[in-house]
């Protein structure tokens, strides 16, 4: 496929000549991984800037959710299950792995169904710390429907489309690469309402050819002012998305206003368990435990630029702590922890601009 890459790059070069500067933002950690791994920033002309948006569900979880989970672990004798990435995020230097080392029962699972199995084979209460966008929510929803009495969900899930709704007005971005896997669930249809912002969007796959082709499609659309919504990832993204998945997701979750690291409160972006599934909502079941919960500020994070990076206003190298106080081995901000975080990816592949 090498030839294809070169040909697309050549086209991108031609198309971008007439622009002084074009800012393209992608919204998916997996896209950042492709871009850094294949050094796409160095393949394309300098006037085409590729920025990383809030596309990683680990990075955007606010400290408050994490502190709540810590609080629960300190107060209750539960088995806490979550994904590996989430277990590494520090708050005041402590992470879920730290709690595990201290003797708390923290288990890393590959999927919520593993957590469900643990609950079925245990007398203890099992809490699943659920994170992720629309890609991941359907699996949690399926599990909620089958939850035994001792299985609870602490939902830090976020709906991604409302975040785009919050990002797009008054933004300096000329074009967006929409998240591929979120789109397999929500479909092309989910973005139709966002075309009112008149900024072209393309749903893209994850191969380097996909990303480059998407950039080319965007450049043409930016020049012509249309189309505003394109789908490059046709092999997995349908117009209506995954209807069954959307149904169970809507049945199990309600949308509430939710806070995002770096972006603040976004209306209708937090997925909380609906009343019908209240019995497996950890926040409801352990209500008493959370009564005396007060969120704190982590002083170590004062100079962390994650928030700006998630908005595409800064690069990791703009952060004074990058690769000095903050490294993948000893991360300060979540963008350095998650394998899909921009700081982590830049640390792994070297400066890629």
């Amino acid at each position: 496929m090498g030839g294809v890459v070169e040909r697309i790059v050549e086209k991108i070069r031609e198309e971008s000549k007439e622009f002084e500067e074009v800012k393209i933002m992608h919204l998916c950690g997996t896209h950042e991984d492709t871009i850094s791994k294949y050094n796409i920033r160095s393949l394309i002309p300098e006037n085409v800037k590729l920025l990383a948006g809030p596309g990683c569900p680990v990075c955007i979880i606010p400290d408050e959710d994490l502190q709540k989970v810590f609080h629960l672990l300190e107060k209750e004798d539960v088995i806490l299950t979550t994904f590996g990435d989430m277990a590494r995020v520090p708050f005041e230097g402590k992470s879920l792995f730290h709690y595990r080392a201290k003797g708390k029962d923290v288990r890393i699972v590959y999927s919520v169904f593993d957590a469900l199995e643990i609950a079925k084979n245990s007398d203890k209460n099992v809490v699943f710390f659920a994170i992720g966008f629309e890609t991941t929510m359907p699996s949690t929803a399926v599990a909620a429907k089958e939850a035994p009495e001792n299985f609870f969900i602490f939902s830090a899930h976020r709906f991604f489309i409302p975040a785009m709704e919050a990002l797009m007005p008054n933004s300096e971005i000329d074009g967006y690469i929409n998240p591929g896997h979120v789109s397999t669930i929500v479909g092309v249809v989910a973005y139709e309402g966002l075309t009112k912002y008149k900024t072209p969007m393309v749903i893209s796959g994850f191969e380097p050819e996909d990303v480059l082709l998407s950039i080319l499609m965007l450049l043409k659309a930016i020049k012509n002012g249309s189309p505003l919504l394109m789908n490059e990832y046709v092999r997995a993204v349908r117009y209506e998305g995954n209807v069954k998945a959307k149904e169970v997701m809507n049945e199990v979750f309600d949308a509430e206003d939710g806070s995002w690291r770096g972006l603040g409160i976004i209306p209708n972006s937090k997925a909380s368990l609906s009343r019908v599934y209240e019995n497996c909502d950890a926040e409801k079941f352990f209500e008493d435990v959370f009564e005396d919960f007060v969120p704190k500020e982590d002083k170590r994070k004062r100079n962390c630029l994650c928030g700006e990076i998630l908005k595409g206003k800064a690069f990791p190298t703009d952060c004074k702590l990058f690769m000095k106080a903050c490294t993948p081995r000893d991360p300060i901000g979540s963008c350095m922890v998650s394998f899909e975080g921009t700081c982590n990816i830049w640390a792994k592949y070297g400066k890629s601009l």
Partner: protein
Amino acid sequence: MCLAIPAKVLEIDYPFATVSLGGAKRKVRVDLLEDVKPGDYVLVHVGLAIQKVSEEEVREIERLWEELLRE
């Protein structure tokens, strides 16, 4: 955590299926997809098949590439 990986369906045992994920066999849920059959390709994300990947459309994208590059 949030990668979705294409896998080939080997056997259906509803709501589960055994798939081949990068050479390894794995049990995943397929109940959010319409009529999956052995031989189909699906995208697997945290133990759940979230979408079918169609071979026809893989060819379609190649056509799209060709078209864009010829212009």
